[in-house]
């Protein structure tokens, strides 16, 4: 079983390397340069992919948080924690690349626009979530408390997604979905293919990081067990 898991991890890793290079090839060479924005538009492909994976990661946290509240289980608690950590990483990337995009398109690093503000709130919620998990005390209490934070955070995800539609911002364009005013114009087929390829690659990276995180947590558990065994031997 362990060998099979190791094989899957290795296979994923060696699949990810060419996929990342292919994604970069599609972004920088294959996809056309957008007429109005020029080269900085290419930030969009990985910016959107990272935002998607951050949402996926937080939905995973939400799912395990609900299950933790229903019936506390260390496995759910661990899976939620790993997913939250990855989610914070990808939200950080989304925020930073968004700021760079903002500087190139709007000539400002930051503006209190609904999408940006709600994303920042989401980031703060999950950073707080990670801090709650590090508190001292019984794991069950921490699991339940952090699960509440996890659920509050996941409620914010659709708000972040819908922010540009609900508050009708002029800065963040609605690229997909027609929206209230049929705003979503879509993108050129090569651009769409590049975007979907990047999303797939980053989602695979998320799966790889999740597996790696779970493996590390299993090792941590084994260390704890070995330590207890050593203490018992010393005491006996």
């Amino acid at each position, binding site marked *: 079983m362990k060998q099979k898991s190791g094989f899957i991890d290795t296979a994923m890793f060696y699949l990810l390397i060419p996929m990342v290079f292919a994604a970069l090839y599609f972004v920088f060479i294959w996809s056309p340069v957008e007429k109005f924005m020029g080269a900085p538009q290419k930030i969009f492909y990985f910016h959107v992919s990272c935002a998607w994976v951050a949402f996926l990661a937080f939905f995973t946290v939400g799912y395990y948080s609900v299950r933790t509240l229903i019936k506390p289980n260390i496995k759910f608690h661990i899976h939620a924690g790993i997913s939250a950590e990855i989610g914070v990483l990808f939200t950080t990337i989304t925020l930073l*690349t968004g700021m760079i995009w903002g500087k*190139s398109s709007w000539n400002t690093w930051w503006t209190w626009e609904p999408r940006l503000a709600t994303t920042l709130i989401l980031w703060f919620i999950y950073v707080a979530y990670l801090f709650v998990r590090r508190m001292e005390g019984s794991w069950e209490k921490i699991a339940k408390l952090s699960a509440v934070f996890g659920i509050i955070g996941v409620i914010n995800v659709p708000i972040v997604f819908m922010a540009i539609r609900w508050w009708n911002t002029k800065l963040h364009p609605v690229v997909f979905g027609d929206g209230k005013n049929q705003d979503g114009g879509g993108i050129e087929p090569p651009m769409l293919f590049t975007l979907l390829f990047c999303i797939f690659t980053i989602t695979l990276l998320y799966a790889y990081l999740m597996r790696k995180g779970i493996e590390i947590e299993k090792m941590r558990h084994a*260390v704890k067990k070995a330590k207890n065994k050593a203490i018992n031997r010393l005491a006996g």
Partner: protein
Amino acid sequence: MTYLFLAYSIIWTLIAGYIVILGKRQKALKKELQLLDEWNTEQ
């Protein structure tokens, strides 16, 4: 072009950094586990 370069540098530095951190965590735990196992079997 500077913004594009800056954005992609940030993306890959953070992802690579996180993978390195995970690798370090795993390595440290592996070492600790090995030492504990050796100690437990020696006794």
